[in-house]
């Protein structure tokens, strides 16, 4: 089923208007990614009563409080195991995890690799802004080496994680990355991810001008978008092990993984029995 989305009114139906205004800063990319997700859901014709969003803690995670559907704002890093319980208790639900980078691969890193390994039937949308936005812009595992943050004032000397590499190595069946500039592609990838059985991940590189951009010579959302424009290239099928992002370096976008292997529900025999 295809639904034409002519104006934002359609999207508005899926946002809790009584919770506006939201907390996100001007120039922040989180709203853009949420918008893409909702468009994908609307276009996909999903019964919103059977869609649930789970998030942890962070600026990104606040999205769960803004969507008009069953939504769970849980604890920092533990959204994936919460979502796992929710999905297994009611496999009819389409369970979407909306997560910041720190939530997902720092404090939640262990849960991330294990959910991917199990090929748990969950779609993960990760807003990667290279730092902990909510707590004021500290370095984390996705912060590029050399980047300045409030806890790495003279430049981060740790190596960073590449989320697509981590997801692919752990067993995700669908892995794609876009930036907030690639609206249509982002939306299309989310749409695809939502239809895959098992563990799917879409990473969205996103501006955080307020606390990250400011310290890294990109003080506005527009500056960060300009960086994405000049530095990004689309390479569908690129080796996910080779798409790491260096400070001010190239951002490889595209669909990196799209494979089939038995999902957790299939392996556990959910399709055979009534549970």
């Amino acid at each position: 089923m295809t639904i034409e989305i002519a104006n934002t009114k359609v999207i508005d139906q899926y946002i809790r208007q009584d919770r506006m205004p939201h907390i996100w800063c001007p120039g922040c990319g989180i709203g853009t990614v949420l918008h893409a997700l909702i468009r994908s859901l609307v276009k996909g014709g999903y019964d919103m009563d059977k869609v649930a969003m789970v998030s942890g803690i962070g600026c990104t995670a606040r999205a769960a409080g803004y969507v008009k559907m069953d939504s769970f704002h849980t604890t920092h890093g533990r959204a994936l195991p919460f979502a796992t319980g929710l999905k297994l208790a009611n496999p009819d639900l389409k369970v979407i995890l909306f997560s910041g980078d720190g939530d997902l691969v720092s404090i939640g890193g262990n849960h991330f690799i294990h959910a991917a390994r199990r090929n748990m039937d969950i779609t993960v949308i990760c807003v990667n802004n290279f730092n902990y936005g909510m707590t004021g812009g500290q370095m984390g595992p996705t912060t590029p080496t050399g980047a300045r943050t409030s806890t790495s004032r003279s430049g981060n000397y740790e190596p960073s994680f590449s989320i697509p590499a981590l997801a692919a190595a752990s067993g995700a069946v669908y892995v794609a990355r876009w930036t907030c500039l690639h609206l249509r592609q982002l939306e299309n990838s989310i749409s695809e991810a939502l239809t895959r059985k098992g563990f799917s991940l879409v990473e969205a590189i996103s501006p955080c001008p307020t606390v990250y951009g400011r310290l890294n010579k990109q003080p506005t959302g527009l500056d960060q978008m300009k960086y994405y424009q000049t530095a990004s290239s689309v390479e569908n099928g690129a080796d996910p092990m080779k798409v790491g992002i260096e400070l001010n370096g190239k951002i490889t976008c595209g669909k990196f993984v799209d494979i089939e292997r038995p999902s957790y529900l299939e392996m556990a025999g959910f399709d055979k029995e009534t549970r």
Partner: protein
Amino acid sequence: MSNNGHLSGSFYFNGDIACAEGAISAGCRFFAGYPITPATEIAERMSERLPEIGGVYIQMEDELASMAAILGAAWGGKKSMTSTSGPGFSLMMENLGLGYMTETPCVVVNVQRAGPSTGLPTLVAQADMMQARWGAHGCYSAIALCPSSPQEMYDYTIKAFNLSEKYRVPVLLMADEAVGHMSEKVTITPPEKLKLVTRRKPTVSPDKFNPYQPDADLVPPMANAGEGYGFHVTGLTHDERGYPVMTPQAQEKLVRRLVDKIDKNRDDIIEVEEWDTDDAEVVVVSYGISARIVRYAVELARKEGIKAGMLKLITVWPFAESTIKRLAPRLKSFIVVEINAGQIVLEVERCAAGQTKTVLLPGMGGAVHHPDVILEAIRKAAK
């Protein structure tokens, strides 16, 4: 086996297996866990039993995940449980707090072993009793039950589920290694005799539904995900709509209710057993495995003509304040027997409020008390 996987008759079970069977009788159909001595047998039993009766067993990557998963499963509409021991119990605290804040029914079993840290993994203790009350940060009231036998592991696991569903709260079954590992006769309650409680459902249409609007008993009806209510659940302080509100007033209103819904219903929640307390001059207070040894020591004392009695706490939290207050004025002394350096004794002392003496018989863990030690303390206190 019959009746949808429900066993029938009597079995020779250890406490852990009895706990698993109690969960199944109570309607638990989701278990997430991580192996740890002396609770592992509960997970093993659930991994075998749940799939054959249409339930879900999942072994998570750690106890943080296990606790989070059972909360998610509860919102997916299943009665859910996890089991662990000291180190894992510590890891569960943050998400246990999420359970209190979001009023999520579930059962957490702690088969206590001696700590701190790895301690004595295979040996008994009762030293997580205060952690059970205060372990998650912030204000809340908790429910914790202490079984003294495999039969009670079965019975009180069912009770734990009933209380969790009724009050929408995680309920702790605070067992101990001795009870978990001892094998005794366990009689399974026939399904038709079981009294099971299930969460109260909303009676209004989704557009009128406020997920945190309590009924008169201070407990809000609960919708499950996927039923069309489109609700929001958050660990942030929230109003009746479930929306975050960052004010002291909202905090006062919500957290006051979380505390009151347990404390004001304490008469319904609390269960204790008293023996020979009517004419007693000395009452020994105990729970879990210790209560069985106390019972023996009190019988020996009675044979010597000492007016000894016993109070067994089945519900340790909320604490049986009124019972202690009633007994205190007519006693020469309370004696508290527990396998820790002194935890529940603080509550007994607080409620006795100076009206009688309170003597502690502590134990650092690894062994139960010898009845002679208790008997000697009774003799001394009766003088």
